[in-house]
């Protein structure tokens, strides 16, 4: 019936692919009809003799396709932009909540410090955001994109307490894997060098040989993991930090339960590093561990007077200890 059914069929197939350049709604509504019209036009022109009319029709159809795809897409974008107003309230809040949940669980997390083991650097009642990205192993690809690095000596780390991972602790890294650590009269001796620690605070109320001249021998305050450390990692009166662990101490050196009592922190228990203090509120330890009605009332009453305003946005910084040789 038609002079060149094969050629027309090919053109129609090409046109059906070209239709994908139109916006989806438009294509679904008119695509079939447009293909019919296209085929009818091709058939009509195929009946007329000569090459010239066919060329003209082909150029015309191509120009039609080119200009109307641009036009339909432009109007689709324009009308989509206009329709956004009524749904924006719900969408925006959904996006905000999703981003918030992602950010607060994956990127940063808020913690409150209830105990004074880091007093001098981090105070009781400091509410801070913890960066969970820096110390998290990002995998092979992410290593070059994310700000990843290993905890170094002098860094403050937030980690899960190895004896009870429901609790989160914050301490300072003193020993990396392979370091030899001991304490002599409250001073840390690392790899034979006596450390001068500007960040450490010594407010000893009573002498304690276990605490001040670590490691001697386990006592009642040593936990099971601490005993394991004494059994397997103490040589010649020095602790040798095993691979993939950290030896951490509190800056409030004489009032801190740290690696001296419960051993090393496995690398995988490290949560992150403190970003900054967003709110520091002077409250007793018990109130900070859980939000009680009393605490809520206390905050409501004394928010302005007991907030340590000068600590807001304070960054707990890493600090290297100065090493002096010849103490071995």
């Amino acid at each position, binding site marked *: 019936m038609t002079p060149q059914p094969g050629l027309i069929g090919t053109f129609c197939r090409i046109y059906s692919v070209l239709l994908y350049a139109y916006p989806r709604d438009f294509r679904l509504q008119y695509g079939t009809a447009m293909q019919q019209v296209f085929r*009818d036009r091709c058939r009509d022109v195929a009946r007329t003799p000569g090459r010239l009319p066919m060329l003209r029709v082909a150029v*015309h159809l191509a120009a039609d396709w080119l200009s109307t795809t641009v036009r339909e897409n432009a109007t689709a974008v324009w009308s989509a932009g206009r329709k956004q107003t009524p749904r924006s309230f719900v969408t925006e809040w959904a996006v905000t909540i999703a981003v918030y949940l992602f950010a607060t669980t994956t990127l940063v997390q808020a913690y409150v410090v209830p105990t004074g083991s880091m007093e001098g650097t981090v105070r009781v009642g400091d509410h801070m955001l913890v960066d969970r990205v820096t110390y998290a192993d990002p995998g092979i690809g992410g290593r070059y994109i994310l700000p990843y690095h290993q905890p170094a000596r002098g860094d403050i780390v937030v980690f899960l307490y190895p004896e009870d991972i429901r609790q989160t602790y914050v301490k300072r890294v003193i020993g990396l894997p392979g370091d030899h650590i001991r304490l002599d009269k409250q001073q840390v001796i690392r790899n034979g060098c006596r450390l001068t620690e500007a960040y450490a605070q010594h407010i000893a109320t009573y002498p304690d040989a276990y605490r001040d001249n670590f490691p001697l021998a386990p006592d009642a305050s040593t936990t099971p993991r601490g005993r394991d450390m004494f059994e397997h990692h103490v040589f010649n009166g020095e602790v040798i930090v095993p691979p993939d662990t950290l030896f951490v101490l509190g800056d409030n050196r004489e009032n801190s339960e740290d690696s001296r009592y419960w051993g090393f922190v496995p690398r995988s228990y490290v949560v992150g590093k403190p970003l900054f203090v967003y709110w520091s509120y002077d409250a007793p330890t018990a109130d900070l561990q859980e939000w009680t009605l009393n605490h809520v009332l206390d905050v409501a009453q004394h928010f302005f007077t007991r907030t340590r305003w000068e600590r807001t946005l304070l960054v707990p910084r890493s600090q290297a200890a100065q090493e002096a040789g010849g103490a071995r």
Partner: protein
Amino acid sequence: MLRARGLTEELSSRHLRTPLLTSSVQWPIISVTDVFMAKTQSPHELLPLTPPVFHILLALSDEERHGYGIMQDVARQTGNGLQLGPGTLYGCLKRMLAAGLVAESDERPDPALDDERRRYYCMTTLGKRVVRAEAQRLAGAVMAANAKLAGGIV
């Protein structure tokens, strides 16, 4: 109405004399009134119509037609001066449907073509009023042009 026809014939004969490519390529005319056609009760708000919209309305003024039927009739009206491509045709129909100028009729095969079912379109009352108003506007324009150009300057 007749004067309006006269103008389009004038236009189409000019087209036929132009070189091959420009005469065969009918670049769709995008105007604000066409793209942003809104539903309205006053026909004058939609004026002036773009040539494709005007001729589609004319094609539907005597009977309901399917897409290719409209295309053929528009070509006939303008002496092959205005060839609508599928994109132009359905783009216009979409906006004319939204503006309430035309309505979808039923879907049925055209005995003159093949046995495939085709969607037919018909003109609404508003469409009729709009095309009349546009024809009057064009008639006025042609009258003004004739009065000015009567001296045979062009």
